[in-house]
């Protein structure tokens, strides 16, 4: 007789038998049982001893093995020994093995879910284990359980399905300018769980499966009456209101939109003459010398000729807020014509009163027009000829020698060399030969305005804060404004400038001093502001500041002038030279060195700087980009190149010890670089 034998273990004899039967897939009737060890119960699972039984499948009881070629019993024993599992550690979690054919094991307790109904099928072997999962609360005989729990057919399982509701939300808000009304909608979201059908299992984690329903309960009428309540009358967008009532996602929808005011056009001058050619460049010969005779043609005008026609400003169109209020457009200003020497304005016509070359400079809506004569100086400028100061253009055919000065309102052209001299020009400076130990200044008024602009930049911040502080003080309970009638607000201002806004007074003083030094270069508005600030600094009582509101005028004037200082003048000044050494060169516009570079020279440009040749030592500051062929030298000359934050520096060959500054970031080069393009990236200077 061939028999199959298995030694099986368990906590007690029953379990040991059961475990063995499970492995053999036999019922108790099909085996002979021999109890080898009854086992011992331990205390708190410690020190216990397993029960051990020997199960033998007798041949006649075995229906499977009879048809197969019989292996030897030793083979079986070794096979089965390997298959012996130590059941003593089993727990409900580890039994959670899915049966391939669960219904074929009718002896286990099984759980089935059909149509939302949980049924525990009776069995006399394993008990069913149930664990709650997401979206469902489970109760055993009315009591909730949170971990794996054993069920028998006598236990009652009930459940509650979760439901998450996010109710609908909506609100309606204005933007700051009352130019739009936005409806912010969050539709209702309901997440409901239902039980999923599950086949019979001995272990089951019961969880709900979610379905989400999104609903928008908003009615157009609700929105319309809300708009009505908010007094919105203009620009209601019914299509968007419908959209807001239909959308199934969180959204911000503009349901009413005002009309923005349309800016008009400032007044201007239509010129009959070609002012563009005034910006022309002189011709550069092949050998690098400059031929100023070939400078772009600047037209001459005859007495009585009409230079241009003044065009009136076109007012903008007012806008409308959603509340139906009118928004005035930004004011359009008429052209501000400063008719200088040789120019008269007759009605809307600008007429040349003299013959000569017109000089036209514009900055925003300001037009400075004058007709300038040209002074031609045939030889050198030296002690014998004396300095040249001229209201017009100056052309020097020779050199400008030591300690001499040339100062012109218009352009200065020098065919020779400039040595230890001082050249000033209201417009451009063009020099054909070397500039040595000299100072060149072009576009003084523009430079001045940009300096004043920087002061106003800071002052503007102060004035806003001061106005705010005064409003606070006036609102303070203990404050009496009784002295405003007699003394105005200067006493109050004075107290605030004493400590709270300590920095403002030096700025005001600085502005006043700069304007007074250069009165003749500035327009009236700059002087008016200087007079106001002088009253504050010197604490002179007058009617200018009699009530807090008057500070708003001061603020507006500061803002206006600040805006003017930001506008580039047209045409801007320009300096073109072939080479400079130990010199200082200032220009409100572009600077070009067109041949041999420079040595120990300081450049300051309100525009860009372009240098052919090498910049050796010295410094180059530009408000716009800088391009230089070569910076520094083999021997390591510290050479500084500086531009503001948003600008770039290009250098074809940068020797080490070149220092690049962009905004307030600095980078010194410790080796030579070719084809440098320096910009600021992520707060540091990078070289591409």
């Amino acid at each position, binding site marked *: 007789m061939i028999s199959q034998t298995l030694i099986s273990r368990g906590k007690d004899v029953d379990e040991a038998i059961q475990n063995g039967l499970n492995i053999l897939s036999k019922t108790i009737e099909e085996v002979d049982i021999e109890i080898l060890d009854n086992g011992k119960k331990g205390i708190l699972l410690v020190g216990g001893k397993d029960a051990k039984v020997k199960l033998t499948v007798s041949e006649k009881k075995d229906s499977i093995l009879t048809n197969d070629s019989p292996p030897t019993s030793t083979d079986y024993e070794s096979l089965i020994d390997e298959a012996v599992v130590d059941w003593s550690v089993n727990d409900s979690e580890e039994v959670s093995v899915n049966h391939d054919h669960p219904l074929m094991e009718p002896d286990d307790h099984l759980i089935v879910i059909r149509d939302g109904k949980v049924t525990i099928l009776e069995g006399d072997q394993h008990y069913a284990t149930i664990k709650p999962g997401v979206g469902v609360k489970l109760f055993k005989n009315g009591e909730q359980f949170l971990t794996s729990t054993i069920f028998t057919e006598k236990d009652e399982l009930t459940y509650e399905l979760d439901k998450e509701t996010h109710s609908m939300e909506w609100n309606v808000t204005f933007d700051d300018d009352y130019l739009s009304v936005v409806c912010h909608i969050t539709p209702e979201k309901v997440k409901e769980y239902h039980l999923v059908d599950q086949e019979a299992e001995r272990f089951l984690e019961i969880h709900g499966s979610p379905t989400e329903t999104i609903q928008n309960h908003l009615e157009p009428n609700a929105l319309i009456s809300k708009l009505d309540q908010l007094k919105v009358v203009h620009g209601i967008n019914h299509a968007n209101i419908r959209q807001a009532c239909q959308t199934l996602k969180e959204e911000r929808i503009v349901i009413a939109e005002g009309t923005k005011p349309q800016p008009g056009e400032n007044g201007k001058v239509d010129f009959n003459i070609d002012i563009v050619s005034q910006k022309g460049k002189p011709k550069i010969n092949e050998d690098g010398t400059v031929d100023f005779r070939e400078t772009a043609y600047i037209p001459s005008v005859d007495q009585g000729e009409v230079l241009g026609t003044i065009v009136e400003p076109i007012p903008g169109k007012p806008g409308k807020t959603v509340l139906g209020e009118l928004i005035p457009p930004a004011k359009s200003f008429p052209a501000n014509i400063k008719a200088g020497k040789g120019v008269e304005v007759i009605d809307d016509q600008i007429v040349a009163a003299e013959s000569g070359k017109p000089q036209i400079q514009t900055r925003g809506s300001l037009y400075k027009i004058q007709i300038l004569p040209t002074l031609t100086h045939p030889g050198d400028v030296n002690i014998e000829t004396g300095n040249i100061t001229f209201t017009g253009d100056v052309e020097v055919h020779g050199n400008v020698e030591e300690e001499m000065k040339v100062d012109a309102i218009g352009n200065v052209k020098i065919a020779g060399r400039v040595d230890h001299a001082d050249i000033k020009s209201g417009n451009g400076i063009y020099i054909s030969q070397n500039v040595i130990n000299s100072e060149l200044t072009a576009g003084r008024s523009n430079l001045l305005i940009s300096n004043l602009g920087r002061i106003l930049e800071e002052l503007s911040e102060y004035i806003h804060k001061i106005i705010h502080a005064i409003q*606070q003080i006036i609102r303070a309970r203990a*404050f*009496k404004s009784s002295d405003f009638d*007699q*003394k105005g607000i200067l006493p109050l201002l004075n107290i605030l400038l*004493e400590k709270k806004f300590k920095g403002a007074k030096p700025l005001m003083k600085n502005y006043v001093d700069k304007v007074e030094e250069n009165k003749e270069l500035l327009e009236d508005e700059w002087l008016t502001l200087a007079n106001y600030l002088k009253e504050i600094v010197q604490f002179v009582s007058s009617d200018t500041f009699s009530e807090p509101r008057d500070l708003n005028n001061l603020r507006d004037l500061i803002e206006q002038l600040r805006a003017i200082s930001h506008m580039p003048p047209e045409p801007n000044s320009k300096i073109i030279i072939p080479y400079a050494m130990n010199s200082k060169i200032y220009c409100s516009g572009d600077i070009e060195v067109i041949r041999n570079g420079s040595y120990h020279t300081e450049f300051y440009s309100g525009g860009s700087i372009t240098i052919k040749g090498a910049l050796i030592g010295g410094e180059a500051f530009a408000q716009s980009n800088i391009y230089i062929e070569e910076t520094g030298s083999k021997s390591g000359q510290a050479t500084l190149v500086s531009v503001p934050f948003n600008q770039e520096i290009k250098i074809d060959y940068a020797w080490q010890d070149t220092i690049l500054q962009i905004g307030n970031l600095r980078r010194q080069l410790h080796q030579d670089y070719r084809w440098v393009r320096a910009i600021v990236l992520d707060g540091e200077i990078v070289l591409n």
Partner: protein
Amino acid sequence: MKFHIDHQQDLIQISFIGDLDLEATELFEEELIPKVKEVVNIHGVKLDLSEVPFVDSTGVGLLIHFVEELKALETKVKLENVRSEVYELFSLMQVGEILGIEVEQGTVS
């Protein structure tokens, strides 16, 4: 506005009664300053503002000027019992910082 001077050895306490405003100008310039200057060897002056409910900017200016005169005489100055509304105003104007003296808020307002 009125004031009351209490003189004890080298300490003076000046109590102000009424609004510190433009109308107090004469009082400060013609009475108070000359009177204090007469007294020699003062070490400390306490200015009691418990009875001052309102101030205007001129009044604050007068007070600043007065304190500066006193400090020029090498006298220690202290503002006392300043009502909370006035104290708030002084803080907005940074009066204490201007004068570099102590401003003490009163308990009653």
